Protein backbone atom coordinates (compact mmCIF):
# COMPACT_ATOMS: atom_id res chain seq x y z
CA UNK A 1 0.00 0.00 0.00
CA UNK A 2 2.79 2.46 0.86
CA UNK A 3 3.92 4.91 -1.81
CA UNK A 4 0.75 4.44 -3.78
CA UNK A 5 0.01 7.65 -5.60
CA UNK A 6 -3.33 9.04 -6.77
CA UNK A 7 -3.45 11.92 -9.23
CA UNK A 8 -6.04 14.70 -9.06
CA UNK A 9 -7.35 16.91 -11.83
CA UNK A 10 -6.72 20.15 -9.95
CA UNK A 11 -5.17 21.53 -6.80
CA UNK A 12 -4.39 24.64 -4.79
CA UNK A 13 -2.00 25.59 -2.01
CA UNK A 14 1.27 24.19 -0.70
CA UNK A 15 2.59 20.66 -0.17
CA UNK A 16 1.34 19.14 3.10
CA UNK A 17 1.78 15.91 5.09
CA UNK A 18 -0.37 14.38 7.79
CA UNK A 19 -2.54 11.52 8.96
CA UNK A 20 -5.61 10.98 6.82
CA UNK A 21 -9.12 11.20 8.26
CA UNK A 22 -11.27 9.40 5.71
CA UNK A 23 -15.01 8.96 5.18
CA UNK A 24 -17.43 8.49 2.32
CA UNK A 25 -19.35 11.61 3.30
CA UNK A 26 -19.56 15.27 2.33
CA UNK A 27 -17.89 18.41 3.65
CA UNK A 28 -19.24 21.81 4.57
CA UNK A 29 -17.62 24.01 7.20
CA UNK A 30 -20.99 25.49 8.19
CA UNK A 31 -23.08 22.32 8.19
CA UNK A 32 -20.64 19.78 9.55
CA UNK A 33 -18.17 21.41 11.93
CA UNK A 34 -17.94 22.83 15.41
CA UNK A 35 -15.22 25.25 14.40
CA UNK A 36 -14.51 26.34 17.96
CA UNK A 37 -13.74 22.83 19.22
CA UNK A 38 -12.35 21.60 15.91
CA UNK A 39 -14.61 18.56 15.58
CA UNK A 40 -17.23 17.26 13.18
CA UNK A 41 -20.49 18.14 14.91
CA UNK A 42 -23.36 17.26 12.57
CA UNK A 43 -25.13 14.17 13.88
CA UNK A 44 -25.20 11.60 11.15
CA UNK A 45 -21.91 12.65 9.60
CA UNK A 46 -19.63 9.64 9.45
CA UNK A 47 -16.92 11.59 11.27
CA UNK A 48 -19.23 13.02 13.99
CA UNK A 49 -17.21 13.65 17.14
CA UNK A 50 -13.82 13.31 15.40
CA UNK A 51 -11.23 16.07 15.60
CA UNK A 52 -10.11 17.40 12.24
CA UNK A 53 -7.27 19.59 13.52
CA UNK A 54 -4.06 18.86 11.63
CA UNK A 55 -5.57 15.96 9.70
CA UNK A 56 -5.67 15.47 5.94
CA UNK A 57 -9.40 15.17 5.31
CA UNK A 58 -10.27 12.71 2.56
CA UNK A 59 -13.96 13.01 1.78
CA UNK A 60 -16.42 12.54 -1.03
CA UNK A 61 -17.96 15.83 -2.15
CA UNK A 62 -18.30 19.47 -1.18
CA UNK A 63 -21.73 20.09 0.31
CA UNK A 64 -23.83 22.88 1.63
CA UNK A 65 -23.76 26.59 1.25
CA UNK A 66 -21.38 29.41 0.54
CA UNK A 67 -20.04 30.08 4.05
CA UNK A 68 -17.01 27.81 3.65
CA UNK A 69 -15.56 30.45 1.32
CA UNK A 70 -14.95 32.64 4.39
CA UNK A 71 -14.72 29.95 7.05
CA UNK A 72 -11.52 28.26 5.82
CA UNK A 73 -9.80 31.65 6.15
CA UNK A 74 -11.20 32.13 9.66
CA UNK A 75 -10.29 28.58 10.73
CA UNK A 76 -6.75 28.97 9.44
CA UNK A 77 -6.31 32.29 11.24
CA UNK A 78 -7.13 30.57 14.55
CA UNK A 79 -5.11 27.45 13.76
CA UNK A 80 -8.13 25.19 14.25
CA UNK A 81 -7.97 23.79 10.78
CA UNK A 82 -7.32 20.58 8.83
CA UNK A 83 -3.91 20.14 7.23
CA UNK A 84 -5.43 19.66 3.77
CA UNK A 85 -8.62 18.68 2.02
CA UNK A 86 -8.87 15.91 -0.57
CA UNK A 87 -12.23 15.48 -2.30
CA UNK A 88 -13.69 13.40 -5.08
CA UNK A 89 -15.81 16.37 -6.19
CA UNK A 90 -15.56 20.05 -5.30
CA UNK A 91 -17.96 22.91 -5.74
CA UNK A 92 -16.84 26.48 -6.46
CA UNK A 93 -17.16 27.45 -2.80
CA UNK A 94 -14.42 25.08 -1.67
CA UNK A 95 -12.08 26.39 -4.36
CA UNK A 96 -12.89 30.02 -3.56
CA UNK A 97 -12.35 29.36 0.14
CA UNK A 98 -9.08 27.54 -0.43
CA UNK A 99 -7.89 30.34 -2.72
CA UNK A 100 -8.63 33.03 -0.11
CA UNK A 101 -7.05 31.08 2.73
CA UNK A 102 -4.11 29.73 0.72
CA UNK A 103 -5.30 26.34 1.91
CA UNK A 104 -4.16 23.03 0.43
CA UNK A 105 -6.84 21.18 -1.53
CA UNK A 106 -6.90 18.72 -4.42
CA UNK A 107 -9.86 17.07 -6.15
CA UNK A 108 -10.98 14.86 -9.04
CA UNK A 109 -9.65 11.30 -9.24
CA UNK A 110 -10.15 8.36 -11.54
CA UNK A 111 -11.17 6.30 -8.51
CA UNK A 112 -13.14 6.86 -5.32
CA UNK A 113 -10.41 8.46 -3.23
CA UNK A 114 -12.26 7.70 0.02
CA UNK A 115 -11.95 3.99 -0.79
CA UNK A 116 -8.34 4.27 -1.91
CA UNK A 117 -6.85 5.98 1.17
CA UNK A 118 -7.05 4.03 4.45
CA UNK A 119 -8.23 5.98 7.47
CA UNK A 120 -5.21 6.96 9.57
CA UNK A 121 -2.66 6.49 6.79
CA UNK A 122 0.20 8.98 6.72
CA UNK A 123 -0.10 10.83 3.43
CA UNK A 124 1.49 13.59 1.42
CA UNK A 125 -0.64 16.01 -0.61
CA UNK A 126 1.13 17.97 -3.34
CA UNK A 127 -0.93 20.46 -5.34
CA UNK A 128 2.14 22.24 -6.69
CA UNK A 129 3.01 19.65 -9.38
CA UNK A 130 1.62 19.76 -12.90
CA UNK A 131 -0.41 16.70 -11.85
CA UNK A 132 -1.46 17.27 -8.23
CA UNK A 133 -1.45 14.09 -6.15
CA UNK A 134 -1.97 12.40 -2.80
CA UNK A 135 0.55 9.73 -1.83
CA UNK A 136 0.62 7.22 1.02
CA UNK A 137 4.06 7.44 2.61
Amino acid at each position, binding site marked *: MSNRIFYATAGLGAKRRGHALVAKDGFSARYDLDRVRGIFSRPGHKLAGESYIGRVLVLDAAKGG*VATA*WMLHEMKARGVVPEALVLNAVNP*IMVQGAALADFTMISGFDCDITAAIPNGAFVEVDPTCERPFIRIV
Partner: protein
Amino acid sequence: MRLTDEEEAMRAGNLGPALRWAIEHQTCVGRYFGARDFVQVSQAHLMADTESLGVAGVEWLEHMANLPPEHRRVRIPTITDPRGTDFAAAHRLKHEPWMLDLERRAIVAFEALGVVMTDTCINYQTIMPPVRGEHVAYGDTGVVIYSNSVCGARSNFEGGPSALSAGLTGRTPRYGYHLDERRRATLVVNVAWTPREFNEWGALGGIVGRLAGDYWQVPVVVGIDRVPGSDEMKHFGAALASYGSVALFHMAGITPEAQRPDDVVDPGTGTPTFQVGEADICAFQRSYTQAVEKVDVVVFSAPQLSLIEMRLVADLLDGRHATIPLLVVTSPQVKPDADRMGFTARIEAAGGMVLSGMCFYQSYAREMAEANGWKRLATNSAKLTNIIGGYGYTPALLSMEACIEAACADGRITP
Protein backbone atom coordinates in the same frame (compact mmCIF):
# COMPACT_ATOMS: atom_id res chain seq x y z
CA MET B 1 -7.02 32.02 -18.88
CA ARG B 2 -7.21 34.52 -21.69
CA LEU B 3 -7.20 38.05 -20.23
CA THR B 4 -8.22 41.29 -21.91
CA ASP B 5 -5.99 44.35 -21.76
CA GLU B 6 -8.09 45.71 -18.89
CA GLU B 7 -7.82 42.44 -16.97
CA GLU B 8 -4.05 42.41 -17.53
CA ALA B 9 -3.92 45.94 -16.16
CA MET B 10 -5.84 44.82 -13.09
CA ARG B 11 -3.45 41.93 -12.59
CA ALA B 12 -0.44 44.19 -12.96
CA GLY B 13 -1.76 46.39 -10.17
CA ASN B 14 -2.25 49.42 -12.43
CA LEU B 15 -5.80 49.84 -11.07
CA GLY B 16 -4.87 49.41 -7.43
CA PRO B 17 -4.31 46.56 -4.96
CA ALA B 18 -7.98 45.66 -4.48
CA LEU B 19 -8.47 44.94 -8.18
CA ARG B 20 -5.14 43.12 -8.34
CA TRP B 21 -6.21 40.84 -5.49
CA ALA B 22 -9.69 40.38 -6.99
CA ILE B 23 -8.56 39.42 -10.49
CA GLU B 24 -5.87 37.10 -9.12
CA HIS B 25 -8.41 35.41 -6.87
CA GLN B 26 -10.81 34.99 -9.77
CA THR B 27 -8.07 33.74 -12.08
CA CYS B 28 -7.04 31.15 -9.51
CA VAL B 29 -10.63 29.89 -9.23
CA GLY B 30 -11.15 30.04 -12.99
CA ARG B 31 -8.03 27.99 -13.69
CA TYR B 32 -9.15 25.34 -11.21
CA PHE B 33 -12.29 24.84 -13.26
CA GLY B 34 -10.73 25.26 -16.67
CA ALA B 35 -12.32 28.61 -17.49
CA ARG B 36 -11.05 30.05 -20.76
CA ASP B 37 -11.89 33.66 -20.01
CA PHE B 38 -14.09 36.00 -17.98
CA VAL B 39 -17.72 36.93 -18.52
CA GLN B 40 -19.15 40.34 -17.67
CA VAL B 41 -21.68 40.26 -14.81
CA SER B 42 -24.34 42.83 -14.02
CA GLN B 43 -24.94 42.26 -10.30
CA ALA B 44 -23.22 40.67 -7.32
CA HIS B 45 -24.75 39.34 -4.11
CA LEU B 46 -22.42 38.91 -1.18
CA MET B 47 -22.70 36.52 1.77
CA ALA B 48 -20.64 37.76 4.69
CA ASP B 49 -22.22 37.33 8.10
CA THR B 50 -19.68 37.73 10.88
CA GLU B 51 -20.15 34.21 12.17
CA SER B 52 -18.57 33.12 8.88
CA LEU B 53 -16.10 35.97 8.58
CA GLY B 54 -14.80 35.79 12.13
CA VAL B 55 -12.39 38.41 13.39
CA ALA B 56 -9.89 37.46 10.68
CA GLY B 57 -12.42 38.06 7.91
CA VAL B 58 -13.54 41.40 9.32
CA GLU B 59 -9.92 42.54 9.61
CA TRP B 60 -9.37 41.45 6.00
CA LEU B 61 -12.37 43.54 4.91
CA GLU B 62 -11.14 46.52 6.93
CA HIS B 63 -7.80 46.30 5.16
CA MET B 64 -9.63 46.55 1.83
CA ALA B 65 -11.80 49.38 3.14
CA ASN B 66 -8.74 51.40 4.12
CA LEU B 67 -7.49 51.60 0.54
CA PRO B 68 -7.96 54.92 -1.29
CA PRO B 69 -11.59 55.42 -2.40
CA GLU B 70 -10.71 55.32 -6.10
CA HIS B 71 -9.21 51.85 -5.65
CA ARG B 72 -11.75 50.13 -3.44
CA ARG B 73 -15.26 50.79 -4.80
CA VAL B 74 -17.34 48.08 -6.48
CA ARG B 75 -18.23 48.84 -10.10
CA ILE B 76 -21.55 46.95 -10.40
CA PRO B 77 -24.54 46.81 -8.01
CA THR B 78 -23.33 44.64 -5.13
CA ILE B 79 -25.80 43.74 -2.42
CA THR B 80 -25.64 41.70 0.79
CA ASP B 81 -27.07 38.49 2.18
CA PRO B 82 -28.50 38.52 5.74
CA ARG B 83 -26.32 39.80 8.53
CA GLY B 84 -25.55 38.07 11.80
CA THR B 85 -28.05 39.96 13.93
CA ASP B 86 -31.05 42.27 13.94
CA PHE B 87 -29.68 45.18 15.94
CA ALA B 88 -33.17 46.19 17.06
CA ALA B 89 -33.78 42.77 18.62
CA ALA B 90 -30.28 41.59 19.52
CA HIS B 91 -30.94 41.79 23.24
CA ARG B 92 -34.03 39.59 22.89
CA LEU B 93 -31.91 36.96 21.11
CA LYS B 94 -29.18 37.33 23.77
CA HIS B 95 -26.58 38.24 21.19
CA GLU B 96 -23.40 39.35 22.92
CA PRO B 97 -21.92 42.86 22.54
CA TRP B 98 -18.83 41.46 20.79
CA MET B 99 -21.07 40.01 18.05
CA LEU B 100 -22.70 43.39 17.49
CA ASP B 101 -19.33 45.15 17.46
CA LEU B 102 -18.05 42.75 14.83
CA GLU B 103 -21.19 43.25 12.73
CA ARG B 104 -20.84 47.03 12.95
CA ARG B 105 -17.21 46.85 11.84
CA ALA B 106 -18.13 44.66 8.88
CA ILE B 107 -20.93 47.03 7.84
CA VAL B 108 -18.63 50.05 7.97
CA ALA B 109 -16.12 48.20 5.80
CA PHE B 110 -18.72 47.10 3.26
CA GLU B 111 -20.12 50.59 2.98
CA ALA B 112 -16.63 51.93 2.33
CA LEU B 113 -16.37 49.45 -0.53
CA GLY B 114 -19.62 50.75 -2.02
CA VAL B 115 -21.64 47.64 -1.15
CA VAL B 116 -25.39 48.20 -0.72
CA MET B 117 -26.52 46.68 2.59
CA THR B 118 -29.74 44.95 1.53
CA ASP B 119 -29.25 42.09 4.04
CA THR B 120 -31.52 39.68 2.24
CA CYS B 121 -31.56 36.19 0.78
CA ILE B 122 -34.79 36.83 -1.16
CA ASN B 123 -33.50 39.58 -3.43
CA TYR B 124 -35.13 37.73 -6.35
CA GLN B 125 -38.50 38.51 -4.69
CA THR B 126 -37.79 42.00 -3.47
CA ILE B 127 -34.83 43.85 -5.04
CA MET B 128 -34.08 43.25 -8.72
CA PRO B 129 -34.77 39.75 -10.07
CA PRO B 130 -32.33 38.79 -12.83
CA VAL B 131 -33.69 38.11 -16.30
CA ARG B 132 -33.18 35.09 -18.50
CA GLY B 133 -29.63 34.88 -19.79
CA GLU B 134 -28.30 37.57 -17.45
CA HIS B 135 -24.86 36.70 -16.08
CA VAL B 136 -24.61 37.49 -12.37
CA ALA B 137 -22.38 36.63 -9.42
CA TYR B 138 -24.67 35.63 -6.58
CA GLY B 139 -23.61 34.38 -3.20
CA ASP B 140 -26.34 32.52 -1.40
CA THR B 141 -27.21 29.03 -2.56
CA GLY B 142 -30.95 29.72 -2.39
CA VAL B 143 -30.50 32.91 -4.39
CA VAL B 144 -28.37 31.19 -7.01
CA ILE B 145 -30.64 28.20 -7.55
CA TYR B 146 -33.81 30.34 -7.79
CA SER B 147 -32.17 32.83 -10.14
CA ASN B 148 -30.67 30.14 -12.37
CA SER B 149 -33.70 27.88 -12.45
CA VAL B 150 -36.81 30.05 -12.15
CA CYS B 151 -35.45 33.23 -13.73
CA GLY B 152 -33.07 31.62 -16.24
CA ALA B 153 -30.12 33.71 -15.07
CA ARG B 154 -26.54 32.44 -15.05
CA SER B 155 -24.49 32.20 -11.88
CA ASN B 156 -22.25 29.82 -10.02
CA PHE B 157 -22.17 29.72 -6.24
CA GLU B 158 -20.05 32.78 -5.50
CA GLY B 159 -18.85 32.81 -1.90
CA GLY B 160 -18.17 36.13 -0.20
CA PRO B 161 -14.61 36.65 -1.48
CA SER B 162 -15.58 35.78 -5.05
CA ALA B 163 -18.77 37.84 -5.04
CA LEU B 164 -16.79 40.80 -3.75
CA SER B 165 -14.20 40.18 -6.45
CA ALA B 166 -16.96 40.20 -9.06
CA GLY B 167 -18.29 43.44 -7.62
CA LEU B 168 -14.86 45.01 -7.94
CA THR B 169 -13.93 43.69 -11.38
CA GLY B 170 -17.42 43.50 -12.93
CA ARG B 171 -16.75 39.99 -14.22
CA THR B 172 -16.38 36.39 -13.16
CA PRO B 173 -14.61 33.33 -14.60
CA ARG B 174 -16.67 31.72 -17.35
CA TYR B 175 -17.24 28.15 -16.16
CA GLY B 176 -20.06 26.05 -14.74
CA TYR B 177 -23.53 27.51 -15.11
CA HIS B 178 -22.39 30.39 -17.30
CA LEU B 179 -21.97 27.77 -20.06
CA ASP B 180 -24.79 26.28 -22.14
CA GLU B 181 -23.39 22.76 -21.95
CA ARG B 182 -23.39 22.72 -18.15
CA ARG B 183 -27.09 23.56 -18.02
CA ARG B 184 -28.26 20.25 -19.50
CA ALA B 185 -30.03 17.83 -17.16
CA THR B 186 -27.93 15.04 -15.66
CA LEU B 187 -30.77 13.25 -13.87
CA VAL B 188 -34.52 12.96 -14.34
CA VAL B 189 -36.81 12.88 -11.30
CA ASN B 190 -40.37 11.76 -12.01
CA VAL B 191 -42.64 13.11 -9.27
CA ALA B 192 -45.96 11.35 -8.78
CA TRP B 193 -47.33 13.74 -6.16
CA THR B 194 -47.27 17.53 -6.16
CA PRO B 195 -46.55 19.07 -2.73
CA ARG B 196 -49.03 21.47 -1.14
CA GLU B 197 -47.31 22.99 1.89
CA PHE B 198 -43.95 24.80 1.96
CA ASN B 199 -42.42 22.09 4.15
CA GLU B 200 -43.48 19.49 1.57
CA TRP B 201 -41.85 21.50 -1.22
CA GLY B 202 -38.75 21.65 0.93
CA ALA B 203 -38.90 17.92 1.58
CA LEU B 204 -39.11 17.26 -2.15
CA GLY B 205 -36.12 19.56 -2.65
CA GLY B 206 -34.21 17.64 0.00
CA ILE B 207 -34.97 14.30 -1.64
CA VAL B 208 -33.94 15.52 -5.09
CA GLY B 209 -30.82 17.09 -3.59
CA ARG B 210 -29.79 13.79 -2.03
CA LEU B 211 -30.37 12.02 -5.35
CA ALA B 212 -28.31 14.63 -7.20
CA GLY B 213 -25.44 14.53 -4.73
CA ASP B 214 -23.10 17.26 -5.89
CA TYR B 215 -22.77 20.69 -7.48
CA TRP B 216 -22.37 19.49 -11.04
CA GLN B 217 -25.66 17.61 -11.20
CA VAL B 218 -28.69 19.26 -12.82
CA PRO B 219 -32.01 17.57 -12.06
CA VAL B 220 -35.06 17.95 -14.26
CA VAL B 221 -38.25 17.39 -12.29
CA VAL B 222 -41.11 15.92 -14.29
CA GLY B 223 -44.73 15.50 -13.25
CA ILE B 224 -45.48 18.60 -11.20
CA ASP B 225 -49.18 19.10 -12.01
CA ARG B 226 -49.52 22.85 -11.43
CA VAL B 227 -47.33 25.94 -11.58
CA PRO B 228 -45.80 26.46 -8.13
CA GLY B 229 -45.81 29.97 -6.67
CA SER B 230 -42.68 31.94 -5.93
CA ASP B 231 -42.63 30.97 -2.23
CA GLU B 232 -43.07 27.29 -3.12
CA MET B 233 -40.20 27.48 -5.60
CA LYS B 234 -38.18 29.29 -2.95
CA HIS B 235 -38.56 26.48 -0.41
CA PHE B 236 -38.00 23.77 -3.03
CA GLY B 237 -34.88 25.41 -4.44
CA ALA B 238 -33.38 26.34 -1.08
CA ALA B 239 -33.67 22.76 0.16
CA LEU B 240 -32.37 21.31 -3.11
CA ALA B 241 -29.34 23.59 -2.98
CA SER B 242 -28.77 22.80 0.69
CA TYR B 243 -29.04 19.02 0.57
CA GLY B 244 -27.38 18.56 -2.80
CA SER B 245 -25.19 21.63 -3.23
CA VAL B 246 -27.15 21.95 -6.48
CA ALA B 247 -27.19 25.30 -8.32
CA LEU B 248 -29.66 24.66 -11.15
CA PHE B 249 -32.80 22.58 -11.64
CA HIS B 250 -35.37 22.39 -14.38
CA MET B 251 -39.07 21.73 -13.90
CA ALA B 252 -40.63 20.40 -17.08
CA GLY B 253 -43.30 22.67 -18.50
CA ILE B 254 -42.65 25.30 -15.84
CA THR B 255 -39.11 26.70 -15.72
CA PRO B 256 -37.97 28.70 -18.75
CA GLU B 257 -35.33 26.40 -20.19
CA ALA B 258 -37.40 23.20 -19.98
CA GLN B 259 -40.76 23.66 -21.58
CA ARG B 260 -40.45 19.95 -22.41
CA PRO B 261 -38.07 17.44 -20.80
CA ASP B 262 -36.42 16.99 -24.21
CA ASP B 263 -35.31 20.63 -24.10
CA VAL B 264 -32.74 19.75 -21.44
CA VAL B 265 -32.29 15.95 -21.65
CA ASP B 266 -29.92 14.65 -24.30
CA PRO B 267 -31.66 11.77 -26.10
CA GLY B 268 -30.04 8.36 -26.03
CA THR B 269 -27.64 9.19 -23.21
CA GLY B 270 -29.29 7.02 -20.59
CA THR B 271 -29.79 9.87 -18.16
CA PRO B 272 -30.35 8.35 -14.70
CA THR B 273 -34.02 8.42 -13.79
CA PHE B 274 -35.65 8.28 -10.38
CA GLN B 275 -39.22 8.12 -9.04
CA VAL B 276 -40.46 10.13 -6.05
CA GLY B 277 -43.94 9.82 -4.55
CA GLU B 278 -45.98 11.02 -1.60
CA ALA B 279 -44.64 8.22 0.61
CA ASP B 280 -41.07 9.40 0.04
CA ILE B 281 -41.96 12.96 0.99
CA CYS B 282 -43.78 11.80 4.13
CA ALA B 283 -40.86 9.55 5.09
CA PHE B 284 -38.42 12.42 4.63
CA GLN B 285 -40.44 14.58 7.02
CA ARG B 286 -40.93 11.77 9.52
CA SER B 287 -37.16 11.35 9.68
CA TYR B 288 -37.00 14.84 11.21
CA THR B 289 -40.04 14.54 13.45
CA GLN B 290 -40.31 11.10 14.98
CA ALA B 291 -37.65 11.71 17.62
CA VAL B 292 -39.10 15.05 18.75
CA GLU B 293 -42.24 15.32 20.89
CA LYS B 294 -41.65 18.81 22.22
CA VAL B 295 -39.59 21.77 21.01
CA ASP B 296 -38.02 24.77 22.74
CA VAL B 297 -38.31 27.27 19.90
CA VAL B 298 -40.19 27.68 16.62
CA VAL B 299 -38.35 29.38 13.75
CA PHE B 300 -39.60 30.65 10.40
CA SER B 301 -36.45 31.53 8.48
CA ALA B 302 -34.08 30.24 5.80
CA PRO B 303 -35.12 31.70 3.45
CA GLN B 304 -36.45 34.97 4.85
CA LEU B 305 -40.23 35.24 4.66
CA SER B 306 -42.01 37.05 1.86
CA LEU B 307 -44.80 39.49 2.61
CA ILE B 308 -47.29 36.76 1.77
CA GLU B 309 -45.70 34.34 4.23
CA MET B 310 -45.76 37.08 6.88
CA ARG B 311 -49.49 37.43 6.34
CA LEU B 312 -49.98 33.66 6.61
CA VAL B 313 -48.17 33.60 9.95
CA ALA B 314 -50.22 36.56 11.20
CA ASP B 315 -53.47 34.87 10.11
CA LEU B 316 -52.57 31.59 11.83
CA LEU B 317 -51.76 33.43 15.07
CA ASP B 318 -55.00 35.41 15.23
CA GLY B 319 -56.71 34.67 18.56
CA ARG B 320 -53.76 32.54 19.71
CA HIS B 321 -50.76 33.11 21.94
CA ALA B 322 -47.31 31.62 21.62
CA THR B 323 -46.08 30.16 24.89
CA ILE B 324 -42.55 29.39 23.68
CA PRO B 325 -40.24 31.62 21.59
CA LEU B 326 -41.56 32.02 18.05
CA LEU B 327 -39.11 33.71 15.68
CA VAL B 328 -40.33 35.08 12.34
CA VAL B 329 -37.49 36.31 10.14
CA THR B 330 -37.96 38.53 7.11
CA SER B 331 -35.99 40.95 4.99
CA PRO B 332 -35.49 44.69 5.57
CA GLN B 333 -37.46 45.26 2.38
CA VAL B 334 -40.52 43.24 3.51
CA LYS B 335 -40.49 44.39 7.13
CA PRO B 336 -41.78 47.97 6.53
CA ASP B 337 -44.68 46.60 4.49
CA ALA B 338 -45.40 44.01 7.18
CA ASP B 339 -45.38 46.85 9.71
CA ARG B 340 -47.60 49.05 7.54
CA MET B 341 -50.13 46.30 6.96
CA GLY B 342 -50.29 45.30 10.59
CA PHE B 343 -48.76 41.83 10.18
CA THR B 344 -45.85 42.60 12.51
CA ALA B 345 -48.16 43.93 15.20
CA ARG B 346 -50.45 40.90 14.95
CA ILE B 347 -47.54 38.46 15.18
CA GLU B 348 -45.96 40.27 18.11
CA ALA B 349 -49.30 40.68 19.91
CA ALA B 350 -49.58 36.90 19.77
CA GLY B 351 -46.17 36.48 21.36
CA GLY B 352 -44.06 36.12 18.23
CA MET B 353 -40.83 37.98 17.56
CA VAL B 354 -40.42 39.54 14.10
CA LEU B 355 -36.79 39.86 13.05
CA SER B 356 -35.39 41.63 10.03
CA GLY B 357 -32.17 41.51 7.99
CA MET B 358 -30.77 38.35 9.57
CA CYS B 359 -31.22 34.64 9.11
CA PHE B 360 -31.45 32.22 12.02
CA TYR B 361 -28.57 29.94 11.14
CA GLN B 362 -26.32 32.84 10.10
CA SER B 363 -26.81 34.59 13.44
CA TYR B 364 -24.64 32.76 15.94
CA ALA B 365 -27.09 29.87 16.21
CA ARG B 366 -24.84 27.87 18.55
CA GLU B 367 -24.41 30.79 20.95
CA MET B 368 -28.15 31.53 20.83
CA ALA B 369 -28.86 27.92 21.74
CA GLU B 370 -26.56 28.08 24.75
CA ALA B 371 -27.78 31.50 25.91
CA ASN B 372 -31.48 30.70 25.55
CA GLY B 373 -31.52 27.00 26.41
CA TRP B 374 -32.75 26.02 22.95
CA LYS B 375 -32.05 22.44 21.91
CA ARG B 376 -35.12 21.31 19.94
CA LEU B 377 -36.41 23.47 17.13
CA ALA B 378 -39.51 23.32 14.91
CA THR B 379 -39.53 24.90 11.47
CA ASN B 380 -41.24 24.59 8.11
CA SER B 381 -37.90 25.11 6.33
CA ALA B 382 -36.27 21.90 5.12
CA LYS B 383 -33.13 23.93 4.47
CA LEU B 384 -32.94 24.91 8.12
CA THR B 385 -33.44 21.31 9.28
CA ASN B 386 -30.44 20.31 7.16
CA ILE B 387 -28.16 22.98 8.54
CA ILE B 388 -29.10 23.38 12.15
CA GLY B 389 -28.10 19.93 13.43
CA GLY B 390 -24.47 20.92 13.09
CA TYR B 391 -25.12 23.78 15.52
CA GLY B 392 -26.35 21.37 18.18
CA TYR B 393 -30.12 21.55 17.62
CA THR B 394 -32.53 18.67 17.03
CA PRO B 395 -34.90 19.92 14.33
CA ALA B 396 -38.49 18.95 13.52
CA LEU B 397 -39.84 19.67 10.04
CA LEU B 398 -43.53 20.61 10.22
CA SER B 399 -46.08 22.61 8.26
CA MET B 400 -46.42 26.29 9.08
CA GLU B 401 -49.75 25.51 10.77
CA ALA B 402 -48.25 22.70 12.88
CA CYS B 403 -45.36 24.98 13.87
CA ILE B 404 -47.85 27.57 15.12
CA GLU B 405 -49.77 24.87 16.98
CA ALA B 406 -46.55 23.79 18.70
CA ALA B 407 -45.65 27.37 19.54
CA CYS B 408 -49.03 27.85 21.22
CA ALA B 409 -48.95 24.52 23.09
CA ASP B 410 -45.74 24.90 25.10
CA GLY B 411 -43.81 23.32 22.24
CA ARG B 412 -45.74 20.05 22.13
CA ILE B 413 -45.97 18.63 18.64
CA THR B 414 -49.36 17.32 17.64
CA PRO B 415 -48.91 13.79 16.28
